[in-house]
């Protein structure tokens, strides 16, 4: 059998028709008889493929089309045009065999019934996904080890904290050991420890099962910890597809030179590059220079100024990505 990537997306597009009217009574009456619609192109001709076992970060500002893409790939939305194959299924046909082999974790309320303890929802999922008892016990034990679920299982879901609920949601979405995971903001609302735990867990799940993961997150720490590859989408168009380390070279081919000076505040650094603030290291002053000019600027700095210490670093990934969004 020919090798096929588990996620294959070709020129996928989604246009929403959104009713539109001016404010005011007259406009309200007019719109009753004749509605005006505006086409909102949420996703435009997006193509990419993801190989088995990859963890890919899907980034973009709010409203860029990330969630719409995830919803199409999980089968919730029909695209306006273009195609996708996930595990060789067309997602929006919603074939039960497809739904049994993937998961979508979105927001906080999804798989768990609000009014009953999570344990009952888990057992329901076991039945729905036809998970044999021994396999269920094994998976549950693994999930419990990683996420410490046991103390949460007996409480009605409505009484859990946001972080506790998120842990249960993620676990509920993984009981059937999906081969493909779509995660929309899996760490949203969690504290730092909670975020770190979910990240560790996802890495371990990926290593144990070889699952393919596509995730969105607003926390760059999620992305840098989990993903070697990222996709950047903006205004519905795919702007970048590649390694996270290549991103700075392609989007922002510059370096940061940090200098510790004898009398830090008296010297004017504007002749060497653009001075940028760095809150993590207040002892040094930082200037941004083109990657090609680093050697020249460094030797001029050393020759001109009373320098105690000098460092040359890549710009932080957050600011590179931010810059990529703005382009």
């Amino acid at each position, binding site marked *: 059998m020919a090798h096929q990537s588990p996620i294959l997306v070709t020129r996928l597009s989604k246009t929403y028709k959104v009713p539109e009217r001016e404010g005011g009574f007259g406009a309200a009456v007019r719109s009753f008889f004749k509605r005006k619609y505006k086409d909102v192109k949420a996703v435009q001709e997006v193509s990419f493929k993801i190989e088995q076992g990859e963890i890919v970060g899907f980034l973009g500002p709010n409203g860029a089309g990330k969630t719409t893409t995830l919803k199409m790939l999980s*089968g*919730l939305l029909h695209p306006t045009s273009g195609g996708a194959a996930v595990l060789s299924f067309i997602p929006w046909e*919603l074939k039960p065999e497809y739904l049994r082999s993937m998961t*979508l974790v979105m927001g906080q*309320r999804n798989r768990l019934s609000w009014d009953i303890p999570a344990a009952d*929802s888990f*057992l*329901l999922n076991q*039945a729905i996904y036809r998970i044999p008892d021994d396999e269920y016990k094994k998976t549950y034990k693994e999930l419990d080890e990683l996420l410490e679920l046991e103390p949460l299982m007996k409480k009605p879901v409505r009484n859990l904290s946001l972080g506790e609920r998120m842990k249960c949601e993620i676990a509920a979405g993984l009981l059937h050991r999906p081969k493909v995971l779509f995660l929309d903001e899996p760490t949203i609302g969690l504290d730092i420890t909670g975020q770190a735990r979910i990240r560790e867990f996802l890495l371990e799940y990926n290593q144990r099962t070889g699952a393919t993961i596509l995730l969105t997150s607003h926390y760059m720490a999620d992305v840098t910890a989990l993903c070697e590859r990222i996709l950047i989408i903006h205004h519905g168009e795919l702007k970048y597809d590649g390694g996270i380390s290549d991103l700075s070279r392609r989007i922002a081919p510059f370096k940061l030179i940090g200098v510790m000076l004898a009398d830090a505040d008296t010297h004017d650094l504007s002749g060497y590059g653009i001075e940028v603030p760095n809150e993590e290291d207040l002892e040094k002053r930082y200037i941004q220079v083109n990657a090609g000019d680093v050697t020249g600027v460094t030797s001029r700095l050393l020759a001109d100024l009373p320098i105690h210490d000098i460092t040359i670093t890549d710009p932080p990934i957050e600011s590179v990505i931010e810059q990529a969004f703005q382009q």
Partner: protein
Amino acid sequence: MVNIFKRLWQVNWAEQWQYRANLIMYLLYFLVSPVIYLAVWTSIAASRGEVNGFTTNDFITYYMTLLIVDQITSNIILHIFAYKVQDGSLSGELIRPIHPMLTNTLVNNIAFKALSLMGLTPIWIILFALFRPDYSGVTWLNMALSIPAMALGFIIGFLLSAAVTSLAFWTTRVYSISEFYFAIFLLFSGQFVPLPLMPDFVQEVAKYLPFQLSLYFPIQLILGKLSPEEIIQGFLAGILWLPISIGLFNWVWREGVRRYSAVGA
């Protein structure tokens, strides 16, 4: 599949118990109109001896039976499903490998029925003591025949309500459409008044519509008011409407899900 339904039952039964107060309010609301019709028609019949062949006892037994048959054949799809399309909470169910309407919503309806029938029983006994209906016309055969009749009435009613509620995929707000549907249902099902009291053309139209299968047909069947021909006619109508409602629901559902916009979340 049996296991899925068992677990769905446990979850939905537990959920229904969470909303006991809601259930009591629903029961009171549900009781108001049949009990008013019952009181009005019995007093009219009492003053005139009978109305179009319906005696006082006919009215009492009709509405007392209606209270139970309606509980069994009606559904609450509109109340438990439409909002899920509106606020996007259907998403979680849509990506499970089971049909949201034909599994979870169905079981939820049945759990609701089971609980509301439990609540109805003491009220029914009180009404029985008050109105003292004469049920001597009821036979075991009629009772037995009413079971498949009510099952058919429930399934057809469920599928049609599911189809109407699925219009929410197009309009988002489906309440006005379903109000219209309920008005038609009220008129042609025999809920408002027993069908023989309606004008001839209404009776004629009602015969071909599926609504009487949920109320009028099983009620009159239990009460032994139908001739063998009418019983056969009723079951034939049910057997005919069953594939039509299945087809209609499937079509609306398939087209609707294509339009689902998975808002929120």
